[in-house]
Structures are given as C-alpha cells and as structure tokens.
C-alpha cells in the first residue's frame, strides 16, 4: 500500500536473505552429497559438474537479461538446437560456421525484439512461435542426433588449462561479464525498463532500441550455449534445446530473478543451474530412483521462490520505509 510510504524508518532490513537463500541451498546440497559419497569432493568431479552445467549456464544467462527487462525468451532452446545442428552438418571452415551460428542467434534476437515492439505482441507468444520455427529448421539440417563436429572445436571445449577444465574459466568469465553489464548503461537501461517501463520512457530512454539489444544479446548467449554443447558432446542434436528452455527460466528464478522484471542476476542464475545439476547426483548417491529427480527439482524451485517471497511479504508487513 502506498500510504505506507509516510511511515518513517531508518534503514532497510539487512542482510538480504532472499539473495543468500540459493547459495545456502547449494551449499547444503553439496554437503549432503559429499557425506553420501565422499569421492565427489574432488577436482575431477567438480570439473565434470562445471562442464555439465556450462551450456545451461549460458542459456540461463541470456534468459536472465530478458527476464530482468520484463520479457521472456522461449526461443533460446530453438537457437541452441539450430546451432548444434548447423555445426554438425555444415561442411565449411569451422570458424565460419561458428560465426554463422552466432550471427543467426543475434538475428533471431533482433527479429524477436522487432516483432514484440513493432507489432506489440507479448514476448511469450512471439518467442514461443520462434522456438517452434527454429525447432523445425533444426530438423531440416539434422533429422536425428548425430552428425560430426569439428575435432578442433571438440578438443578446445574439452581442454584443460593448468589442470582445470575450460568450463571453469568460462564460468568465471560469465561472472565478470555480469559485473560489467550490471554497471553499464546497457544494464541500467535493462533494469529500468523491467522495473517501470513508462518511467523509463519518460526519462528519455529509447525503449525500442534497448529491447532489441537485450533480445539480441540473449540470442547470442543461446548460440554460444549451442556451440559449447556441440563441442563438448562431439555431435549435434536438433532437439537438445527443448528440455533446457524451462530449465533456463527456472534456474534464473531460483537465482532471484523476478518474472515481473526489474530484479535478478546472472550469478544467481549460475547458482540456480548448479542446484538443478547437483540435485540429480544427490538423489543418485542416496539410492533414490532417477525418476524422483524432476519431482525434487520442482520442490526446490517452489521452496526457493516461496522463501524469498515470504521474506518480502514480511518486509512489506513490517512497513519498512526510509524518510
């Protein structure tokens, strides 16, 4: 309620438990896993987890940016599938193919943005359509899992530097990139649009151009996810993206990103991805059949979001306002 605003208070509730919650859950899961299977407490196992999580991480990173700006992008899965299919079938110089896939990702993002803004259609509808289209196109390139990925790409993606897998460095790169985005004009604008689009417009922000940029960056991240996946696995898959679409949204949300826009972080999304990836191992080591995995993933999702929402409702009932 707005009339709360005249209530005086000196400071906000600190620390922000809602931000810490996913980290605590991840640590708890990790501890449980190590107790169940002490061997997992090793560089080797953690490296595998990083490799395993990397494609979804990039997908969730792009998704997070779009969610912060108040949109949603379901076409990330389509871009990822199409990228792996192109890499597995196009017999050109691998660098050219990679560039082509990246351009394809950006182009898809621009088209998404154009349709959403110019025709004023809801993002979920536009990108749902785009996902279906791209899924279809992927099957034109590659009708089933397979194909051949360039050896160099495969060996780069599975390489180690100083005995630490490449995926670890890429994750670190993603965190640094997020720090830069957050503190850039692009980032400020993205948060502003998601938080209150009308106010952003009144402040003179070019909403149209900004949204197109955001969707283009998301497309680029999705293509990167496809390149990483194909490189790691060594083959293409025209349907790999499909399972990852909702996971990318869920990971972002677990990491504290708000579906109504204005709040969120890529670091949170990375934590969210790890929670999803680790939970299946925990269940495995606990001897629980694998079909329980989805059930637990769902519970974790709801618990995480419920805890942070509980926190903010306590905060709003306490009526903390600064004068």
């Amino acid at each position, binding site marked *: 309620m707005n009339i709360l605003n005249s209530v*005086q208070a000196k400071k906000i509730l600190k620390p922000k438990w809602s931000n810490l919650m996913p980290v605590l859950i991840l640590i708890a899961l990790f501890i449980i896993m190590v107790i169940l299977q002490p061997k997992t407490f090793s560089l080797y196992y953690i490296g595998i987890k990083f490799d395993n999580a990397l494609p979804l991480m990039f997908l969730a990173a792009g998704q997070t940016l779009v969610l912060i700006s108040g949109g949603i992008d379901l076409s990330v899965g389509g871009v990822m599938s199409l990228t792996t299919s192109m890499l597995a079938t196009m017999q050109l110089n691998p660098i050219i193919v990679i560039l082509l896939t990246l351009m394809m990702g950006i182009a898809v993002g621009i088209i998404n943005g154009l349709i959403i803004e110019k025709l004023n259609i809801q993002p979920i509808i536009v990108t749902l359509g785009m996902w279906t289209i791209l899924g279809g196109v992927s099957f034109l390139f590659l009708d089933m899992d397979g194909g051949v990925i360039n050896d160099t790409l495969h060996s780069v993606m599975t390489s180690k530097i100083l005995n630490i897998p490449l995926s670890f460095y890429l994750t670190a790169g993603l965190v640094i990139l997020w720090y830069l985005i957050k*503190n850039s004009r692009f980032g400020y*604008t993205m948060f502003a649009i998601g938080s209150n689009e009308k106010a952003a417009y*009144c402040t*003179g922000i070019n909403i149209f151009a900004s949204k197109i940029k955001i969707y283009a960056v998301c497309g680029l991240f999705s293509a990167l996810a496809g390149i990483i996946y194909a490189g790691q696995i060594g083959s293409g898959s025209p349907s790999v993206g499909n399972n990852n679409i909702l996971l990318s949204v869920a990971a972002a949300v677990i990491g504290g990103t708000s579906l109504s826009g204005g709040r969120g972080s890529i670091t949170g999304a990375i934590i969210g991805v790890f929670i999803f990836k680790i939970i299946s191992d925990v269940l495995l080591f606990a001897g629980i059949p694998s079909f329980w995995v989805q059930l637990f993933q769902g519970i974790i999702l709801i618990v995480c979001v419920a805890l942070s929402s509980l926190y903010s409702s306590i905060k709003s009932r306490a009526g903390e306002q600064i004068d």
Partner: protein
Amino acid sequence: MGELIFKNITKSFGAVRALDNFSCSISSGEVHALLGENGAGKSTLIKLLSGAVKLDTGSIEWNKKLLNITKPIDSIRSGIGTVYQELSLIPDLTISQNLFLNHWPNKSQIISKKIINQKTLELFNKYNVDVIDPDVIISDLSLASKQTIEILKIINRNPEIVVLDEATSALSLKKVEWLLLLCKKLATEGKTVIFISHRLYEISTVCDRVTVLRNGQYIGTKNIKETNNDELIQMMLGRKMSSYYPERIKSAEKESILEVVNLSCGKHLNKVSFDLKKGEILGVGGLAGQGQSALFLSLFGMLRYTGDVKLNGKRIILKNSYNALKNGIALVPEDRSTQGLINDKTIRENISIVSLKSISKFGVLSGKIEEKRITKIIDELNIICDRIDKPVSSMSGGNQQKVVLGKFLMAETNILLLFDVTRGIDVGTKMEIFSIIQNLAKTGHSILYYSTDIDELVTLCERVIVMYDKNISEILNSSAINKVNILKASVGEEIDF
C-alpha cells in the same frame, strides 16, 4: 530573456476537448502557476510539453523557435524538465542510479558506482537536502522522499524550463518550503518554472504570475500581487463562491463506538489511545510520517499491532482487511487509481465488489438487486455518470473517489477511515466531498479523517488528534481547533488553552 508561447492549441480526446484554442505566454525568469479545476486542461498542457501526447492544432514556441515534441526524449532535448505527479523513478534502482539514468556521468559505457554516489552526495549538499544513502533502493523510500529525489533528478539535468506537476502534494510542510525556495532560486537563475498546485497558499507565496484555465480554455493571466484568492477561485469556477469551505457542524455528546487503547505497531506507532464517537468526524493531523498511515493501516488490519481495539465495548481482532470489513471498518486510500479501484472494470463492478454476497441469490448475482442498490448509492453520493457500465478509468478523479466511497457504503460499513482522500482533487469537487462526508456523519457513520491540509481539518472536524513522533501529541476539541494550534501540536509544542 526567453519566452515560452502556446499558440491556439487544441487537443481532443475522442469527443472531449481537453484544450480549446488555448494561448498563453510564459517568460523566463518567472515562476508561473497554472490553476484550474481537475479537467480544466492543466495536465493536458503539461503532457503536450513533456511529450506524453501530441497536439492536434496550434504550436508551442520557445525563444521564437518552434518546438516539435512527439516523445519524452524530444521534450528533454528541448531543455524541458518535467517533475511528474506520478513520478518517473525506477523502483528497483538505487537513488544514485536513478539520478544518473540516461544522464550519464561521463562518456564511458561502464558506470562507476563510486562516481555517481559521490555526485549524488554533492547534489544533496548543493540543494540542501537531508542526506540519504545513495545506495538505497527507490521502493524503500517514503513517498515524500521519492518526490524529493524526483525533483533533484530533474533539476540535475539542468533544464531551461522546469515543470512541476503537483510536486508539493506528497511533501511535508518543511519540504514544501524547501521546494518553494528552490523554485525562486531557479527563477532568479533565469529559468522558467511552471508550477501546478491546488494549494492557493503555495501559489501566492512563490509565483509571479498565474494563468487560470477552465474547461480547456484560457481564462486569464494575473500578476499574483494584483489578485487575491477569492478572485482566483471565482476565475477557476466561473461563479462566485459563498465560502471556501462548508460550515462545520457541531454536535452534542455522542457515545463512543471505536475505542483504541495503547495501539503500537513496530517502529511506527507507540501506544496510541483515543476513541471515535458515533456520527463523529474525527480529524487526524500532524506532519507527514508521524505514524498516521500506520494507524490507519492497523485499524484496517493491514499491519500487525499490539494493544486493544474495541468496537462497541467488545474487543475485536483485526488480522486482515477481510476482518476489518466484517466489523464494518473501511479504508479509503489516497491513491484511487492503484489502491482504491480496479481501473479496467466498470463503475458497477467496482461498487459491488465487496458486497457480492448480499446481492446474490443462491450464489448467483442478481442484476436487479445490484442495480437498485447501486442507483441508490449513486444518488446519495452524487456520482456523475450516464451509465453504470462505463469503466471507472473514464471518470474524473473526484468522481472516482466517490466510487471508492460508494463501494464501502454498499458494504454497509459504518466506520470510515479516510486517508487523504482529497489529494489532487480540485476545490469544487472537494466541497462536494466535504458535504458528502458531513451527510455520512449525520446518518450515523463514524469517520476518521486524515488530511495533509490543515484548513480541511479545521473546517470539517469536530475533534482533531494531532500526531507527532509515533504518538498523539494533542487531542483538540471544537473550540480549540484552529490552524495555529494544529501547527503547534504538529511540531510537538505545548498549546496554552
């Protein structure tokens, strides 16, 4: 010396002419007030300047150059800074991020938090504003502080023309003084300040000239020194007004209906006790942010409280707004568009939404009963509408507020908590709402009436409780209610009777 000239401006929304061949000129170095009832065309004029709407015919000139404004960015680039009534701040960004959003501190694409925080503190210092941590998120600020930040945000962009659209409505008395001084300072620096307010006191204090609008037409421009409030009100209304406010009704001793004992609510209320009598209009005054909103919210079950609330001598528990309504307590909030109404829905739906049970037969709504009861309420409150199936968003502010009242009357609540309900409502409609409130009191409703406008409390209320620092500093009875006493109690001073 520059001059802002409006030439023969016409703007229609559908069949309604919001501005009708309006012409007026405003020179730089002056504080120029726009005055008029709600719907007179002031806000349309501001929207034309800020780029929210496009004009149909006519032109706006600045320094003999034509201004072509179609989007907010055009307005900003032309050197116009608008302080919006509904604020243009981003709730999820921090104070410093908001101040420098799209007004980047340097050429770099990467923004240094350190630099903008430093600049924010400098800005607070320069304009003599109480320092708030620049890293505080806007949504954690009080409305008054948000308003201050909004003003700073615009001033910081160094506009040639500053438009203040009801910028004082959310501010405390002290902050209003600050803003009025700031306006004067800007004018002496050669800027043009366009000042919109419903409070004549502010206009006569700060403005050099005032232009009055009525029904979208230009009525006249006066030098503030050569006019007086009566003349301005007459120009606004187009008719003479016997007195600015209605007579205060006095009443004999009444029995108390609601008793509040030691009500405390976290940091916001500290052991508040008072009683509300049947058929009484009990005023709540004091500077903004002394616990008034916590008091109203806890009585409507929206905040957790300790202490006792007794209704007709029986202790009641107010856990949520449903409890409160069950006990016949209703809260009419200040912001009708976001808190009081469901904007897209019709007048009918908005009025009957809390009384669906009583207008249903076997769980199915009965249109007949509904219409009958709504018509009665529309007559009682003099709600102006041709059909009850029109969306409330098409109504004027005053009428919307009446719909909110009507909603609770239909639910047969008898204790009405009115929280600054006349905010942003013009003088004419205000009068009408006052007489409605008085009628409600006569028919046995008990009313707790909070207003930021002391004049309203003085005229309307039989008793006034003045709040200061989370508590009641004084309860004034009829003969002691006057402006001086309320002001004194508001700042915690002793009153000698």
